[in-house]
């Protein structure tokens, strides 16, 4: 039993990384731009579809496919931010949320229109075929790769935000937009940058998931629910919280699938409810 749980923990950890990539972008956009993008999951989904097309349908190299997907979704991010999101920064909160919600509908049907509504799954890249033997069970190489990738992204984000000039601008704008603008930071350009960066993070999550997870309409939105729970647990606008929250949610979800399959979603909600009652701003929030 203990072995089963430990193993499930590892499975959960790899799932956490997809959640982390999604939650990271969501948190960045909320922390810096002040907008909660309900459609962030759609960008995840588009990343998955793009990679599936380049790698699964066109037979391109796996890494190249991921790179191209990031570019494509980044491009979509530019369009979204410049044409639409830019206009809603100053309007009432409900309208902001409703607008992003509208985009979920658009992207979901768009994807059905272009690729059909059938769930698809491309083959595993040759490089990663095979399993490690952990605790007497087969644990795919690919999952280890995902865990490493997720941690790498976390380190990368930390480096960027703490050590680079761009990171400093982001942190400044997040804490005081007017002041940042007053000292010469080009806010509109920065916002577009951050949005696109966040979009690419989400797309990366979707892209990395293609060999092992199903590519279908609605996968992004299914995960955004958990991304919300993560940000609530971790604290809205807090990247460290998002990482820790992702790990918690990922592992608990995988326990749930094993132990209480019908109520798996409930477990994380119970945890979230408990966290909210004890610390309403989230574990790391203010």
């Amino acid at each position, binding site marked *: 039993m203990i072995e089963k749980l430990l193993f499930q923990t590892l499975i959960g950890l790899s799932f956490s990384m997809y959640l982390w990539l999604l939650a990271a972008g969501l948190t960045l956009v909320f922390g810096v731009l002040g907008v*909660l993008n*309900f459609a962030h999951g759609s960008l995840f989904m588009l990343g998955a579809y793009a990679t599936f097309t380049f790698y699964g349908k066109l037979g391109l190299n796996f890494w190249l496919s991921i790179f191209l997907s990031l570019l494509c979704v980044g491009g979509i991010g530019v369009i979204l931010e410049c044409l*639409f999101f830019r*206009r*809603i920064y100053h*309007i009432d*909160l*409900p*309208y902001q*949320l*409703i*607008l992003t*919600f*509208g*985009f*979920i*509908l*658009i*992207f*979901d*049907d*768009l994807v*059905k*229109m272009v690729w059909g509504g059938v769930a698809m799954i491309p083959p595993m890249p040759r490089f990663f075929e095979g399993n490690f033997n952990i605790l007497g069970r087969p644990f795919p190489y690919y999952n280890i790769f995902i865990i490493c990738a997720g941690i790498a992204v976390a380190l990368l984000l930390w480096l960027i935000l703490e050590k680079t000039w761009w990171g400093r601008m982001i942190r400044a704008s997040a804490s005081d937009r007017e002041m940042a603008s007053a000292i010469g930071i080009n806010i509109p350009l920065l916002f577009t940058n951050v949005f696109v960066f966040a979009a690419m993070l989400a797309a990366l999550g979707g892209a990395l998931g293609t060999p092992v997870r199903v590519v279908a309409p609605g996968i992004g*939105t*299914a995960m955004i*629910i958990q991304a*919300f*729970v993560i*940000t*609530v647990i971790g604290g*809205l606008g807090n990247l460290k919280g998002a990482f820790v929250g992702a790990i918690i949610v990922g592992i608990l979800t995988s326990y749930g699938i094993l132990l209480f*399959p*019908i*109520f798996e*979603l*409930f477990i994380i*909600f119970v945890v979230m*409810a408990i966290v*909210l009652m004890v610390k*309403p701003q989230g574990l790391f929030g203010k």
Partner: protein
Amino acid sequence: MKRIKFFLLLALIIFLFSLPAFSGKYILYITIHILILSVFALGFNLLLGYTGLLSFGQAGFFAMGAYACAKILLILPSLLLGTMTGMIAGALAAFILGFLCVRHTRIYFSMLTLSFGMMIYSLAWKWREVTGGDDGLVGIPRAPLEIPGVFSIDMNPMGNYYYYYVLVISLLAIYLLYRLIQSPFGLTLKGIRESENRVAYAGISVRHYRLLSFTIAGLYAGLAGSFLPPLENTVTPPIAHWTHSAEPVMVTLLGGIHTFSGPIVGSIVFYIIKDIIVRYTQYWLIWFGAIIVFLVLVFRGGIVIFLIERIWPLIKWR
């Protein structure tokens, strides 16, 4: 202005009551759906337009109402019982979940409602023994409207009785909500929308009133949901999905968030638009989403405000 509104309303009610005399089954069927959506959306707008809370999970309560009604009708075929059970199921679910949601800031609230709605969807999908899973519940009778020992009216498809049943109860529900808006309770809710801090300093527990508002919205969602099983004879999980939660959001935005009749007008326009779009493409959600985006960016006031502010002055000066 007031006289016009009154006569329009009277005309509409007379029209609705006489509809079966000159329309076929399909029109009546669509009208029942419009009534269901109106009741659903009015509850939603009590939360948004009047209390300032945006809920993306109302479909969860709609589904609670529909499933509860269906289960009851399968055991004890009495229409009134089904409707009441639906209302109570919606209200109870909203009360319990609301307890966890209303204490938070508006963003968290919206996120939590989306999550809870999907939780209910996932339950409906997976809990085969109770909800029938993705097959749903079938064979639900259009039970007779009866008070045992007093009277019993058969609701079978041959007559238009079910239409009148839904119509009467919907109008009653709408009227009650209208009175509620004009009452001190309604005013207090509006205060919460404008300035929660100030309302607290009036001596009001904001949390309690938000919970009340959420419960009433859940009751209306459950009521709307309870009309569905006798109409369609089946209940399936998609009614709990967030895309269904999007309907009251859209029709309210379309009709106007800050007017009472907005959700109703929006529901009518929605069905007309959907009817047209569906003839050309199966991908009507894209249009749905595009209309939402367009409305938010260009005209947030909605149709009713548009008519009042732009069209009415033109007519007045003739």
